[in-house]
């Protein structure tokens, strides 16, 4: 089990990197760009085998940030490729990330229907 303080440290540092990018490039880089950038960056690092060490070190500190979502997609894909070959390249990513994607869409929709915009 990864200790809580390691998750705090690694997760905090990943967020600080995002904050520095945002403050340095204001107002070009929006929160949307940060989300896209992190999932892309995480996926590329994962493909190169560089993200797993960060997960081993920081646990949720590396998997909760959106870069961890990119890592999950890539690792799911690689695992499925080993089992099914070419088909796995197309099925593995969504299979691994299915719970998160579905939760985000369903909870997002229900909340947006129930609540009204503030302000």
């Amino acid at each position, binding site marked *: 089990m990864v200790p809580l303080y390691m998750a705090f440290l690694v997760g905090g540092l990943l967020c600080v990197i995002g904050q520095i990018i945002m403050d340095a490039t204001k107002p070009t880089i929006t*929160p949307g760009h940060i989300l896209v950038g*992190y999932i892309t960056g995480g996926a590329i690092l994962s493909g190169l085998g560089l993200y797993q060490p960060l997960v081993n070190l920081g646990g949720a500190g590396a998997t*909760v940030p959106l870069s961890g979502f990119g890592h999950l997609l890539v690792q799911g894909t690689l695992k499925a490729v080993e089992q099914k070959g070419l088909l796995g390249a197309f099925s593995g990513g969504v299979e691994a990330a299915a719970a998160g994607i579905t939760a985000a869409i369903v909870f997002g929709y229900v909340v*947006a229907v129930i609540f009204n915009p503030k302000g």
Partner: protein
Amino acid sequence: MHTPEQKIKEIEKQEYEDLINQAKPKPNLARNMVWAFVVGGLICMLGQWMINLMLSRGISLADASSATSCILIFLAALFTGLGYYNELGQRAGAGSIVPITGFANAIVASALEYKREGYIFGVGARIFSVAGPTLVFGFVIAVLVGLIRVFLS
């Protein structure tokens, strides 16, 4: 090319921009970084606490991680609906954007904004205005990595 009037206009424009830059509040980089670190770190720590709890009940790491993501997404969506998440985000910056809770927040916030356009093509479509590009790039890289692996093996 440059008449005196144009030069004066340019100088006035420059002076105006200088004035704006003076009046604009300077982003306090150090304070923003501390906020991002603490809030982002705490969200990840909450996730790790849930994962450790599930691991101790004999749930596999993959399932525990997925379940934790779902719970964090649910909480972030709920707190966005209640209006608390955006308040936190104004201070926490990237600390509330980078974790998966920021993804859920972006989904709900953009869907809420277009609620008056209806529940199908308002809320239903706008859910993906931020989630869409994020998933597109995630999927594209994942498939590319998968294809590279297929052709290398």
